[in-house]
């Protein structure tokens, strides 16, 4: 056995280290790259009635020649039809605003947890993650119970005499933002916490000692040093929020145009798989480019970031 292994390792360079590295690569290959290529392929096809509902990209002509048909029509249609552009812009706006609110809510929370006594820290973190133990859909439905006209919030407010008519909150942007911010908050808190938790408190003391008020010290020291955490958290919220479908559908109004809903309609109502694939590809491109730019920026800045300077 050992001999076979050593033979293998000599002949093919298979070592334990390579095997360990191979696992994530194989995973990514099977579950990301292959589906990606399939969707990419479909996006260049034409729609047709039948199973599958799109034309093949290549086939063999009766003369046994390879016939390849690539169509850019789906992409051209995307560019021509203003609906798609509007949906993209609207999705990005919703995602951006949601990310901003997530950040505003999550930063103080993450900061508070990072500065709490170690005895409490794990409990507080557990509370942040706790909602994940319930199904995402159930939690969004719970918000309907809270926000609808005869829901908990309206009933309490009317019972207290604060309002006389129920506030219309369901099917509004307000409800949608509440749903998105609520659902994605942990994704913002956790990277922020893991960044803030590493901060050296003496840096703030040094800043205060040099004449900075505590607030100015925060702006000049804590905030810039937590930038990697802010960016990581924002990515984790922004990217899925752009393609968010369920929350706008359940809580938002019918007039909120989201690319996720366009995608759904394209796939299931219009059964136009090639067009839907083209939308998905474009969405990917729109999201991947900024990430790659960010990655490059981070790689260049590595080393100068959070590392403290203890001898």
């Amino acid at each position, binding site marked *: 056995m050992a001999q076979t292994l050593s033979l293998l390792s000599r002949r093919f360079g298979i070592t334990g280290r390579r095997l360990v590295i191979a696992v994530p690569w194989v995973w990514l290959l099977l579950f990301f790259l292959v589906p990606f290529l399939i969707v990419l392929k479909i996006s260049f096809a034409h729609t047709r009635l039948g199973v599958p509902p799109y034309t093949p990209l290549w086939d063999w002509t009766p003369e046994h020649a390879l016939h390849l048909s690539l169509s850019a029509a789906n992409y051209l249609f995307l560019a021509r039809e203003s609906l798609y552009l509007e949906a993209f812009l609207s999705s990005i706006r919703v995602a951006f605003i949601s990310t901003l609110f997530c950040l505003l809510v999550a930063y103080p929370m993450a900061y508070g947890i990072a500065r709490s006594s170690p005895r409490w820290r794990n409990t507080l973190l557990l509370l942040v993650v706790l909602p994940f133990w319930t199904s995402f859909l159930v939690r969004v439905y719970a918000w309907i119970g809270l926000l609808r006209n005869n829901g908990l919030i309206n009933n309490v407010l009317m019972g207290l005499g604060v309002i006389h008519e129920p506030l219309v909150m369901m099917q509004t942007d307000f409800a949608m933002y509440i749903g998105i911010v609520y659902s994605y908050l942990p994704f913002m808190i956790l990277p922020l916490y893991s960044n803030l938790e590493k901060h050296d408190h*003496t*840096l703030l003391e*040094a800043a205060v000692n040099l004449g900075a*008020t505590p607030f*100015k010290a925060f702006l*000049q020291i804590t905030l*810039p040093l937590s930038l990697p955490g802010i960016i990581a958290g924002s990515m984790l919220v922004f990217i899925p929020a752009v393609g968010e479908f369920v929350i706008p559908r359940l809580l938002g109004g019918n007039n909120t145009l989201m690319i996720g809903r366009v995608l759904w309609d394209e796939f299931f109502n219009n059964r136009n798989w090639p067009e839907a694939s083209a939308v998905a590809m474009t969405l990917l491109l729109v999201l991947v480019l900024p990430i790659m730019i960010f990655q490059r920026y981070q790689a260049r800045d590595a080393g100068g970031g*959070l590392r403290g*300077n203890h001898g």
Partner: protein
Amino acid sequence: MQGPARAYSVSSAPGSAGPREAEAPWKNPAATAYIRIEGISKKFGQFTAVDDVTLDIHRGEIFCLLGGSGCGKTTLLRMLAGFEAPTGGRIFIDGHDMADVPPFKRPVNMMFQSYALFPHMTVENNVAFGLKQEGMPRNQIAERVAEMLALVKLDELAKRKPHQLSGGQRQRVALARALIKRPKLLLLDEPLGALDKRLREHTQFELVNIQKRLGVTFVVVTHDQEEAMTLATRIGVMNQGRIVQVGTPQEIYEFPSTRFTAEFIGNVNMFKCKVLEARPGHVYIESTDLGGRIHVSPGISSAPDAVVWAAVRPEKIILTREAPRESFNAAAGTIREVAYMGDVSIYLVELDSGKTVRVTQPNTRRHSDGAFRWDDRVWVSWHESSAVVVTE
């Protein structure tokens, strides 16, 4: 100035006039203190970190707070900086009560033990930080920063970030950053602690030079007696939240007033004794540890039969093969250990009483003919003025 533990006056001590003491303001009763610490206490719950400390520190001094870990020296420093509020007592800096002055408004800057350099800023911006908070115009800041970087010899590295610097360079950035606002008082928390031995020696002289040039008052916290000895104009020895003794390095070393001070600073041989006769001029004591009498001059005022300790530094002990002339301050013994250190040799001599005494002798000659060896029978003795009587 001294705590109640002090039994005799230091000013009568012979040969304590060093070059720095020509201008010793603490000896002038008319001089007003620049930093006045009045009955300062700090309690954390049940634990008393600093216990009723009163200190006067004069302008231009390098005052070292020396003590082991947990003795309260860092808490005292943090109260001067304003990071901790005292539970009792008051602090005056240049006549101003600091009680209601927040840390960012105090004329006090601090060099942190970890240096606490801002990792996202260049050396230049680290040093400029204090001036920027004051809203000083940019060109003035640039001028002052350049000046300061030249002083600490870092002008070449102005654009580097802290993680691109060596330990010694970081230490100098921290010093420059703390000095740029020309504070009335600079606090240094274990300033040389993170440097290796060779760099420490170089840096401590540089630190004293810079301090002299700028005339800033330094308060240094350290657990390292060597660091305190070389830097300080005066040392305040702390133990369990209290100041045990204040004095120049020489006074602290040669005339410790308590057993704690004597044992904390340098090596010392302690002989438990009973007082036979105490006079202003001399004191005669009987020591079973030594197996004989000890004469010490100058004397102390003490009741007969009081239990005291005679402290003798290892380098003050004379090692001979023949019995010394006097019968006191001497004992016979056998050499049990010899350690050759290059400049000195250390001998551990087991006295006939059973007590082991540490003796250091300078190696004045290169050849070791006639040197003391293991199991040699020898006499240890010392001069009357070499021993010090200390209390518990």
